[in-house]
C-alpha cells in the first residue's frame, strides 16, 4: 500500500516538495489535507478549528468545551441526538470532539459502506448544530462533573498535571482547565454557546483532513458541504500575552486524602515544532524522560534502580497519551509550550526525596548535557520510534494537520530529516538555551499538605526508604540527593484544599 498526500481545494494550492504542507489561512478556499488509501475500507475525517479554551471569556471558562460537545455529543437541526445515535449505531461509526487550549477537532471514522450518509450527518452537526436545551444541560453537567468529581476526587495524576497548569499559567489564557471551571461552566447559557459557535467555528479558523478509502470527489464534497457552509467571520486568532515569569521554585500543594503523593514540575518554554531547537530538545528529552519507556534517565534511576514509583517522565511540549498506546495524541498544537516532569504517585514517605531527585537530575542534565554515546543512542531510538507514531490512518492524518498548523513539513519527515544532521554539541547548546532548573513550578497532590509544605520550606533532609539494599553507588548518590538544596521560594508556596481548585 502506498500513501499519497495531496491537497484539495477550489483555489490553486501550491504544495511543498512533500505535497502536504500549507498554512490554514489561505484566503480563497480552505485546503484539505488528503491521504487517499484506496485499499482501505475505513475513512477518517478530521475537521479542526483554531479555537480552544483560550477563547473562553474570563467569566465563562468552559464555553468552548460545551460548544465542542454540542457538536460531538449533541444533535443537529436535522437529527436529534437520539436519532443521530440511532443512525450511526449499526455502522459502528464514531464521531467525537477533541478540544484543547488552541484547537478543537471533530473526528469522524466510518466504514466506506456508509460514507455517503455519514458526511451529511457530520456536515449538519458542524454547520448547524441543534443547540437542543437537553443536549446543552447534559453536556454542561458532564463537564462540571469532570471537574468537581473526577478531577478533584478520582484521578490524582491528572489533578497534579492540571495543578501544574494552574500554577504555570496563572492569569494567562492557558490557566483554566480546557473542560472549564466550576463557576465558569455554571455561568454559561445556551445562547452563549450559539453565539460562540457562530463567531468562532468559521471558514477562517477551519483546517480539514481526510484519509482512507474515499471516492475521488470526496474532498470537493467536503469542501462544498462543510467548509463552504461555515460562517464567513474573520480569524479569531488571539495574541497570547507573555507567561508570567516564575520567581524561583514555586509550589502549589493540593490538600486532599491521597494514598500517595503525585508530583508534576515544569516551566514555560517557548519552543515549538516550528523551531530548529525543538528537534535537538527532542533528543535531549528522550534521553532524560521518554514517555513510559526505560530509555529515560528518570525512569531508570527513580523506578528501575530505586523502585520509588511506577514511572517518571519528561516532556518538551504538551503531551496527552493516545488511548491505551504510549504515543502522543495529535491535534493539540499550542503556540506556547512548556517543559515538564511527571512523577507518578510516590508513597508519602519518599515524596520529598523523589521531588529532590527529579530536580537534581534536571540540574545535572542542564549543567553536563549528553555524552556522545547518550546522544547517538537517543537519536537512533527516535529515528526508529517516530515511525511508529503514525501506525493508523487517523494518527497519520492528525500529524499532517499539526504540521500544517505549525507551518512545517510533515512532522515525521521533519524528524527523519533533522535528526541525522544534529550533533551532540547542538543538542547540549539547545539544552542550555532552553532548559533550566532555578525557576520551576512544582505541583503536589498529597495528604497532610501543611506538613509537606513545612518540610519543603525548611529544606529538611529526606532520606529514602527502600524495599531492598541498594548498591554503594546509589547510596552515595542518595546522600547527595537527600541534602540537595531544594531552595523553595517560601513566599511562593501555597496550600489549597482540593475543593477550592478550579472554582473560577
Amino acid at each position, binding site marked *: 500500500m502506498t500513501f499519497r498526500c495531496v491537497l484539495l481545494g477550489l483555489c490553486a494550492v501550491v504544495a511543498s516538495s512533500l505535497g502536504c504542507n500549507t498554512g490554514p489561512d489561505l484566503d480563497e478556499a480552505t485546503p484539505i489535507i488528503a491521504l487517499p488509501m484506496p485499499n482501505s475500507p475505513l475513512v477518517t475525517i478530521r475537521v479542526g478549528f483554531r479555537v480552544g479554551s483560550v477563547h473562553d471569556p474570563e467569566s465563562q471558562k468552559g464555553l468552548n468545551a460545551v460548544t465542542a460537545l454540542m457538536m460531538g455529543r449533541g444533535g443537529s437541526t436535522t437529527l436529534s441526538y437520539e436519532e443521530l445515535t440511532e443512525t450511526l449505531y449499526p455502522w459502528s461509526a464514531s464521531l467525537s470532539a477533541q478540544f484543547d487550549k488552541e484547537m478543537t477537532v471533530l473526528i469522524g471514522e466510518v466504514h466506506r459502506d456508509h460514507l455517503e450518509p455519514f458526511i451529511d450527518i457530520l456536515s449538519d452537526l458542524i454547520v448547524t448544530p441543534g443547540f437542543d436545551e437537553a443536549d446543552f444541560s447534559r453536556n454542561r453537567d458532564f463537564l462540571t462533573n469532570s471537574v468537581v468529581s473526577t478531577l478533584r476526587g478520582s484521578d490524582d495524576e491528572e489533578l497534579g498535571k492540571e495543578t501544574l497548569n494552574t500554577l504555570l499559567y496563572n492569569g494567562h489564557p492557558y490557566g483554566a482547565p480546557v473542560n472549564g471551571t466550576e463557576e465558569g461552566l455554571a455561568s454559561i447559557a445556551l445562547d452563549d454557546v450559539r453565539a460562540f459557535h457562530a463567531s468562532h467555528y468559521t471558514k477562517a479558523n477551519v483546517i480539514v483532513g481526510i484519509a482512507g478509502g474515499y471516492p475521488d470527489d470526496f474532498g470537493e464534497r467536503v469542501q462544498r458541504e462543510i467548509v463552504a457552509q461555515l460562517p464567513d467571520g474573520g480569524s479569531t486568532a488571539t495574541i497570547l500575552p507573555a507567561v508570567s515569569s516564575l520567581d524561583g521554585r514555586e509550589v502549589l500543594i493540593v490538600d486532599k486524602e491521597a494514598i500517595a503523593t*503525585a508530583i508534576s514540575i515544569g516551566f514555560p518554554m517557548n519552543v515549538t515544532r516550528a523551531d530548529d531547537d525543538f528537534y535537538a530538545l527532542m533528543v535531549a528529552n528522550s534521553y532524560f524522560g521518554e514517555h513510559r519507556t526505560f530509555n529515560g534517565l528518570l525512569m531508570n534511576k527513580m523506578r528501575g534502580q530505586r523502585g520509588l514509583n511506577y514511572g517518571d517522565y519528561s516532556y518538551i511540549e504538551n503531551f496527552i497519551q493516545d488511548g491505551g498506546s504510549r504515543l502522543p495524541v495529535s491535534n493539540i498544537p499550542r503556540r506556547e509550550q512548556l517543559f515538564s516532569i511527571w512523577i507518578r504517585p510516590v508513597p508519602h514517605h519518599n515524596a520529598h526525596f523523589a521531588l529532590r531527585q527529579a530536580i537534581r537530575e534536571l540540574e545535572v542534565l542542564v549543567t553536563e548535557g549528553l555524552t556522545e554515546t547518550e546522544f547517538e543512542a537517543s537519536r537512533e531510538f527516535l529515528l526508529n520510534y517516530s515511525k511508529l507514531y503514525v*501506525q493508523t490512518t487517523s494518527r497519520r492524518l492528525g500529524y499532517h494537520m499539526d504540521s500544517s498548523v505549525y507551518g512545517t513539513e510533515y512532522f515525521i519527515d521533519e524528524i527523519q530529516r533533522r535528526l541525522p544532521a544534529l550533533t551532540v554539541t547542538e543538542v547540549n547548546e539547545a539544552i542550555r538555551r532552553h532548559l533550566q532548573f532555578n525557576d520551576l513550578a512544582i505541583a503536589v497532590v498529597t495528604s497532610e499538605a501543611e506538613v509537606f509544605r513545612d518540610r519543603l520550606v525548611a529544606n529538611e533532609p529526606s532520606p529514602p526508604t527502600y524495599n531492598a539494599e541498594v548498591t554503594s553507588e546509589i547510596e552515595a548518590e542518595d546522600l547527595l540527593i537527600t541534602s540537595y538544596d531544594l531552595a523553595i521560594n517560601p513566599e511562593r508556596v501555597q496550600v489549597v484544599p482540593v475543593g477550592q481548585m478550579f472554582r473560577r
Partner: protein
Amino acid sequence: MGAIIWTTTAVSVAQDRGDIFPFPVTTFQLENGLQVVGVEYDSPGVVAFYTVVRAGSRNEVEPGFSGYAHFFEHMMFRGTERYPTDAYNAVIKRIGADSNAFTTNDWTAYYIVASSDELETIVDLESDRFKNLRYSEEAFRTEAGAILGEYNLNFSNPVALLQETLNDLAYDAHPYKHTTIGLLDDVQDMPNNYDYSVQFYDRYYRPENSIVVVVGDFDQSALERFAEQYYADWERGDFVPQIPQEPTQTEERTTTINWSNPTLPFLMIGYHVPAFSDDAIDMPALDVFSQLLFSETSPLFRQLYLEEQLVDVIQGGALDSRDAPLFSIIARITDTARIHDVRDAIYEEIERLKTEPVDTAILDSTKSHMRYGFSMGLNSPGQIARTLSHYLQLTEDPQTVNRVYDLYESVSPEDIMMVANTYFSDSNRTVVILTAEEGQ
C-alpha cells in the same frame, strides 16, 4: 531439537467463507508445544510481535499471593545472563521499538512493535528472556516498589475500589475474587516472596502454555526459521493449576462503601455468567444483551442518560473469560438521592428483556454494530495482533474468532430471553454502592 510438527494456513478458507477475520493466518507448532501464529498484513516496514502466556490472576490460587501474575510481568524486564536489563533496554532503544506488556485475569501479553528488519533481533530477545530469565532478590524487592506505585495510582480512582469490593463480595473460592493488581496487603508483602515469584515463572512460562503471534510486514518462512532456531530448546513444563471451582451463589449480596474524596455516587452490580465458549450460544447472547441494555440506542440509556440525566456513565457486560466471570454493570449517578431509582430502572429493563422478545430490526442493528466495530478496529499490526491474541489465549485456536462471530449472527430473540432468565436472578446478584464520605 524441535522441528515444526504441523503447519496450517487458513487463507482461501477464510476468504471463501466470509469470515470476520479478513487476513490469512498461518499457524505452526514446535515439538515443545509452542504455537506460532503469523498474519501477513500490509504495514510497510512494521511488525507486531506478541508473546501470549496463558496465565493471569486466575492462576493465583494460594492465599496471600494475589497480584503475582502482574508482578511477574514486571520481572520479565529484569534481564538474563545474555541480555541483562541494561543490555535488553539498549537493544529495544536501538531498534526504536514500542515495547510493553499487560496482565489480565486470564493471560499476560508481552509485545514489541518495531521495524520488520529487526524480526530476528526480536525473536532472539524475546525467546531469551522466556527461556533464561535471571533476576536477583534485590531487583525483585526493588520492583515491588513499582508495583505498589501502580496500585497507588489505580486506587486514587473510586472505580478501582468498587471493582475490588464487587469481586471480593461476589466470589467465595475462585481467584477472580481478587483483581489483577492484587490486594493491598499482598502487594505490600511482595518484597518478601522472591521464591514464590521464581516458582510462578517455572510453572507458567513454558512453551506449551505460550503462543507467539506475529502480524505485519514479514516473511513467513523467515519466521518459521527463526522460531525453530530460537525457541526449539525452550523446555516444556508439566504444571497443571488446580483452579478452585466457584460454588453457586444462592442469595443476593449487597454492601455500601465510602470514598474519602469528592465524587458522584457509583452503583456497581454483578451477575455470575458462563465462561467463554466458541460453540455455546450463551456468551454471544450475553454480549448482545449488554448492547440491548446499555448501548447509546438502548431504551435504558435514553431514559437514564438522555431524558432524566440521572447518570453520566452507564455501561455493562462480561469479559470473555476462561472461567465464569461477572456480568458487571456500572453507573455514575448525578444525584445521590436517586441511586435506588437508577438501580430499579436497571432491574426493570432486565425484567422486560426476560419476557419481551427483542424486535428483529433492533437485533439486526446490534449485530451490524458489533460486526462493523470489530472490522474497523483491525487497523494496525498491533491492534490485529492484540485481537487475535485475545482469542488465542482463550482456546489456542485462531479460528475461534470466526466461530464466535458466526455465533453472534445466529443469536435470536429467544436466546436473549433465555440468558436474561437464566442468569439475571436476584439470588445471583451482588450490588455495591459507593458514595462520598459526608462532608466531601
